[in-house]
C-alpha cells in the first residue's frame, strides 16, 4: 500500500496509544509524573494525527470512505484488516480522541483510589485504541475485535477504581455486554455464511445482504439488535448502565457516556441497517417503541433518583432513546439527527459526569438532598453545571437541541413502508419526554445549585459568603479539561451545520437501500 493517499493515518491514529502503553511499560511505577506525561503526550499525539486526518479529509466526498486501507489479516477467516472513515465515522472517531485527551488532563491530579497511576493511564490508552478502532473498522471481525477490546479496560476501570459496589457493577457490565456480543458474533457468523462465506468486509456484505431470505435477515438482525441494544443501552437492556455509571470513577463514567454508548448506535447505523434493510424495516417499529419507552422510562427513573450521578446515568437512557428514535425512522433526516445526537450527548453528558465527579470529590457525597447552594460555594462550577443542564434538556442554541428536535420531527414522517400513525404517536410521547427531561434536570439543578449551602459543608459561614472548608471552585486542570467541551457544545449549538454537513452525505449512502 503506497503512502500517497494517506491510508496510513487511520492505523497510526488508532494504534499510537498502544505504542504509548508500550513505552509506559518501561517507566518504573514510582515515577508517576513521567508515566502521566508519557500517556498525555501519547494522546496529544494521537489527537494530532486525528486532526491531521480532519485536515486531509475531503469534505466534498464526505459520503465516501476515505483513507481506506485494506490488507490481509486472518486469511483463514477471510477476514481482512480493512479501515476507513466517512462522514459518520469521522466525528465519533475524533470525539473518542478528544474525550480521551481531556480525561487524561482531568486525571492529572484526580487519579481515583487506589492510585496505581500507571495502570490507570495505560488502560485509558488501550480503551482509546478500542474506541477509535471500532469507529473505523470496515470488517466485521475487526469491528468485533475492537468492540471487545473496549470491554476489558472498562471492566477493570470500574472493578478496580470504582465505588463501594464496584465488583457488582463491573461484573454486571461485563456479563451483560459479553452476552450481547456473543449474540452479535453469532449474527455476524450467520451473516458470513449466509452470504456464501466469502468475506467479512462490510461493503461486500452490504451488496450481498439483500440476497438473504427475509426470515434469516430478521433472525440475524435480532442477534445484532441485542448486541448493540445492550451497548446503547436500550430499554430493557439498560440496567447495567446506572450501576456501572454510579460505581465507575469519574473518568470511567465520562468515557462510558461520551463514547462507549455510541458504539451501539454506531453499530446500528453502520452495520445492522445497511446490511439488512428488509429486517431493519421489520424491526423499526419495535426499535422505535423501545426507544420512546426508554425516553419516558429513563425520565421517570431520573425523577426517582436521590443520587446525582445515578440521575445523570438514567438521563443517558432517555437521551439515547431520542437517538434510537431517530434511527428507527430509517429516514436520512432521522438518522442525521441520531448521529448528531450521539455527538451532542457525548459532549454534554460527558461534561455532566465531569461535574458530578468534581462535586463528589469536594463534598464526598452525591446525595442530592445533602447538596445545595453550590452556586454560593463555587459559583463557576454551579454555572457550568447549569449550562450543561440547559444543554442537556435540549435548549435551542446548544448542541442538545439539534439531536433532539429533528429526531422528534423525523418521527412524524418515517420511511416509506413504516406505519405513520405509530410513529406519530411516538413523536408525541417523545415530545412529552422533553418536558420530563426539563423537569428532572432543572429539579436537579434547583436542588443542588440554588438555596443556601448545607450546614455540614458551609464551614465557617460569615454572612453567607464564606466558602466552606475544602470546597474550592473549578481548578486549572478542570478548566483545561472542560473548556473544549463547553465550547464545542456552544459552537455546535449555534452552527449545527458544521456537523450536519459532514454527516448528511454519509447517511444518505447508508440508507441508500431505502431510497433515502
Amino acid at each position: 500500500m503506497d503512502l500517497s493517499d494517506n491510508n496510513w493515518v487511520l492505523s497510526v491514529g488508532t494504534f499510537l496509544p498502544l505504542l504509548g502503553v508500550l513505552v509506559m511499560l518501561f517507566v518504573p511505577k514510582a515515577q508517576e509524573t513521567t508515566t502521566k506525561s508519557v500517556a498525555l503526550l501519547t494522546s496529544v499525539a494521537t489527537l494530532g494525527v486525528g486532526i491531521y486526518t480532519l485536515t486531509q479529509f475531503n469534505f466534498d466526498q464526505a459520503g465516501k470512505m476515505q483513507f481506506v486501507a485494506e490488507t490481509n489479516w486472518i486469511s483463514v477467516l477471510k477476514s481482512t484488516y480493512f479501515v476507513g472513515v466517512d462522514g459518520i465515522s469521522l466525528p465519533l472517531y475524533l470525539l473518542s480522541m478528544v474525550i480521551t485527551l481531556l480525561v487524561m488532563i482531568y486525571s492529572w491530579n484526580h487519579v481515583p483510589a487506589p492510585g496505581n497511576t500507571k495502570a490507570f493511564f495505560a488502560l485509558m490508552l488501550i480503551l482509546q485504541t478500542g474506541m477509535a478502532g471500532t469507529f473505523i473498522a470496515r470488517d466485521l471481525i475487526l469491528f468485533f475485535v475492537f468492540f471487545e477490546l473496549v470491554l476489558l479496560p472498562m471492566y477493570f476501570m470500574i472493578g478496580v477504581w470504582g465505588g463501594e459496589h464496584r465488583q457488582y457493577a463491573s461484573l454486571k457490565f461485563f456479563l451483560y455486554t459479553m452476552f450481547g456480543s456473543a449474540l452479535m458474533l453469532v449474527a455476524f457468523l450467520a451473516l458470513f455464511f449466509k452470504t456464501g462465506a466469502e468475506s467479512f468486509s462490510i461493503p461486500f456484505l452490504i451488496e450481498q445482504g439483500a440476497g438473504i431470505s427475509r426470515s434469516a435477515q430478521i433472525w440475524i438482525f435480532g442477534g445484532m439488535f441485542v448486541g448493540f441494544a445492550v451497548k446503547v443501552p436500550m430499554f430493557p437492556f439498560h440496567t447495567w448502565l446506572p450501576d456501572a455509571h454510579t460505581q465507575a470513577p469519574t473518568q470511567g463514567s465520562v468515557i462510558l457516556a461520551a463514547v462507549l454508548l455510541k458504539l451501539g448506535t454506531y453499530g446500528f447505523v453502520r452495520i445492522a441497517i445497511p446490511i439488512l434493510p428488509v429486517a431493519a424495516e421489520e424491526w423499526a417499529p419495535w426499535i422505535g417503541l423501545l426507544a420512546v419507552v426508554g425516553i419516558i422510562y429513563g425520565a421517570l427513573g431520573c425523577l426517582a433518583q436521590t443520587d446525582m450521578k445515578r440521575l445523570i446515568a438514567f438521563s443517558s437512557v432517555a437521551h439515547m432513546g431520542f437517538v434510537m428514535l431517530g434511527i428507527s425512522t430509517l429516514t436520512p433526516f432521522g438518522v442525521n439527527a441520531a448521529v448528531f445526537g450521539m455527538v451532542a450527548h457525548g459532549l454534554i453528558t460527558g461534561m455532566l459526569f465531569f461535574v458530578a465527579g468534581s462535586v463528589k470529590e469536594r463534598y464526598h457525597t452525591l446525595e442530592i438532598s445533602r447538596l445545595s447552594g453550590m452556586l454560593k460555594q463555587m459559583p463557576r462550577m454551579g454555572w457550568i453545571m447549569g449550562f450543561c443542564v440547559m444543554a442537556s434538556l435540549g435548549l435551542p442554541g446548544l448542541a442538545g437541541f439539534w439531536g433532539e428536535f429533528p429526531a422528534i420531527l423525523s418521527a412524524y414522517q418515517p420511511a416509506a413502508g413504516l406505519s405513520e400513525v405509530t410513529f406519530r404517536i411516538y413523536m408525541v410521547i417523545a415530545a412529552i419526554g422533553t418536558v420530563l427531561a426539563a423537569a428532572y434536570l432543572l429539579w436537579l439543578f434547583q436542588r443542588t445549585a440554588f438555596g443556601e449551602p448545607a450546614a455540614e459543608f458551609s464551614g465557617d459561614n460569615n454572612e453567607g459568603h464564606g466558602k466552606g472548608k475544602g470546597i474550592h471552585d473549578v481548578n486549572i486542570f478542570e478548566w483545561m479539561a472542560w473548556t473544549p467541551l463547553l465550547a464545542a457544545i456552544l459552537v455546535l449549538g449555534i452552527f449545527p451545520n458544521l456537523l450536519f454537513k459532514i454527516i448528511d452525505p454519509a447517511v444518505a449512502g447508508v440508507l441508500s437501500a431505502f431510497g433515502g
Partner: protein
Amino acid sequence: MLLNEFLFLGAILFCIGVYGVIVRKNAVLVLMSIELILNSVNINLLAFSLRNGSADGQTFALYVIAVAAAEVGIGLALVLLVYRNSRSISLDDLSEMKG
C-alpha cells in the same frame, strides 16, 4: 461405519461433561468432567482424521492428551493447595471472586 456414529458419541460425552462441570461441586469431580469433554473432542478429531485420511487429527489428539495431562497436574495441585488453605474443596466455599 458411519461418521456420525462417532460424532454423536463425542457430542453425547461432551454434553455429559458439560453437565458435570456445571453440576459438580467437588473440584476433583469437575476436573474429571473436563477430562470427559477432552476425550469427546479427541474422538471427533480421530474420526475426522480417518475420514479425511490425514494424520493431522491424530497429531492433534496427541497434543490434546498431553495438554490434558498437564492440565490435570496443575488442576490437582491447585486443589491440594486450596484444600490446605481452606480444609475443603467444595467449590461453593471457594468464592474469592465473589462480588
